[in-house]
């Protein structure tokens, strides 16, 4: 019998990481994502699977604990919300420089500064364009349902270890706090220490006579070598762009107009597509699931089909820049966003479409 539960997004991803065989969670409470740490503590991960759950003294300490655990080849993660993720950028950059796999969750709230605790998508640039110092990218997954919050735990760890890269689940307060049905799958076993030594020969598991010592460092004072390190990093990002793009098309086949939206905005647009079609507007929705790598080709392809695109975001216009880059001037691209923690409503969105493209 299927294990189906009604869960909050934050609880679903917590359950997801346990079942994905996560070894360690290090985090610090912040609204609207504290349920992750609370759920892990309440479920007693240590007893259930041997997974370590530790409340750190800060987001900075959390991410560096993750860095330590990842360096030793373990499946580790942290979660936070916008101000906390800003604090973590130092450690994320170190993990980018050392190519360590980990899972990061940002349940985005409105900023800048302390901002609000309501849902927002204003951390897109930070997640997708780098965030910390240096030339690097992370894989960024954007869940649009509680089920995806759960699913992306496992997918996130898979991608992280496949490419030795940081994977960020870029969620928001709406997806984190709402409850939906979730179908759970089987518990994956955690890797044993022996399996880690075999699978991840780069990990700091203790130097044995059969191998040279393993050093995890992002430092190389020789600029020539440092350039080579960077070129190789870029090659990896390029490979990811070629192989890991994920998106969902909703009513796109005959669409004359297109919404482009991710996360909870995409859910609002799904409703707007229904409302629009009921009014006779042939509108579809492209929902990027990976924000890096961005579905550039798919957007470009649809640009040849539709008369206009409208990017819907809870930001002043961040993802729309990637839409415009992909469209490259072929069709008009407009943007509509609500700021500071306000969600756009479905008929507000359809009204914007009409205003921009139909009732001009």
């Amino acid at each position: 019998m299927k294990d189906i539960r009604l869960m909050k997004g934050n609880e679903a991803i917590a359950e997801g990481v346990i079942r994905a065989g996560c070894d360690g969670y290090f985090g610090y409470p912040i609204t609207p994502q504290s349920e992750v740490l609370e759920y892990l503590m309440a479920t007693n991960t240590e007893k259930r699977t041997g997974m370590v759950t530790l409340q750190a003294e800060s987001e900075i300490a959390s991410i560096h604990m993750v860095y330590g655990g990842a360096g030793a080849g373990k499946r580790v993660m942290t979660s936070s919300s916008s101000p906390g993720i800003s604090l973590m950028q130092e450690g994320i950059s170190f993990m980018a420089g050392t190519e360590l796999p980990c899972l990061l969750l940002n349940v985005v709230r409105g900023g800048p500064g302390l901002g609000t605790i309501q849902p927002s998508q204003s951390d897109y640039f930070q997640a997708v364009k780098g965030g910390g110092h240096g030339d690097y990218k992370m894989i960024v997954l954007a869940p649009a349902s509680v089920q995806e919050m759960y699913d992306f735990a496992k997918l996130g760890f898979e991608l992280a270890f496949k490419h030795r890269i940081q994977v960020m689940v870029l969620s928001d307060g709406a997806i984190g706090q709402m409850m939906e049905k979730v179908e759970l799958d089987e518990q994956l076993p955690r890797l044993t220490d022996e399996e880690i030594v075999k699978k991840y020969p780069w990990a700091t598991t203790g130097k044995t006579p059969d191998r040279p010592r393993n050093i995890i460092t992002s430092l190389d004072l020789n600029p020539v070598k440092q350039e080579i390190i960077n070129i190789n990093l870029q090659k990896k990002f390029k490979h990811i762009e070629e192989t890991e793009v994920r998106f969902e098309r909703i009513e796109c086949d005959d669409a004359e107009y297109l919404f482009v939206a991710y996360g909870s905005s995409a859910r609002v647009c799904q409703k707007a597509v229904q409302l629009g079609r009921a009014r006779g507007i042939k509108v579809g929705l492209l929902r990027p699931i990976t924000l890096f790598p961005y579905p550039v080709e798919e957007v470009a392809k649809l640009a040849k089909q539709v008369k206009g695109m409208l990017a819907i975001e809870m930001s002043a216009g961040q993802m729309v820049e990637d839409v415009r880059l992909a469209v490259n001037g072929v069709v008009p691209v407009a943007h509509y966003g609500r700021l500071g923690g306000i969600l756009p409503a479905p008929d507000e969105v359809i009204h914007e479409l009409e205003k921009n493209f139909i009732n001009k």
Partner: protein
Amino acid sequence: MTEEIIIAGFGGQGVLSMGKILAYSGMMQNKEVSWFPSYGPEMRGGTANVTVILSDERISSPILNKFDTAIILNQQSMDKFEPSVKPGGVLIYDPNGIVHHPTRTDINIYTIEAADEAAKVGLAKVFNMFVLGAFLKIKPIIDDEYIHKGLEKSLPVRRHNLIPENEKAIAGGKKCVKPVQVLS
């Protein structure tokens, strides 16, 4: 069938938990469900609201600005959500503490004196279940058997002894709901 519901009132009135029981019950009856709360400071006593959607199909937006049913438990929520009821939709409210009663003529309006009725029979703690009963009387979209299962799912096992009084309150609510304006 898709039923889009907003439940709104003061924090502490059991708004979120009423929505949760509704969502759990819908899930037990094999419906698609979503439960989207306002969250944050209302935990400390401000206004709270929750959007619950029950549907036979995949739910698109869990976030809405038009509702089939609004369940209103205080004046602020009345001011905010009366205009959000779809024409022909339903507004159910507890008149206790309401100064400005709804004025729309294109919706169905019912009252449930949940606070008073619950207090009369010593069930003040589960007054929100009176409200839920009122809703289920007007919109019988979930069978009693699944409400029971929903209560079992949403209440922790150590609180299962409270299920009978919750069910008693739901039955009470079904009896006490009064039509104010019913469109023909």
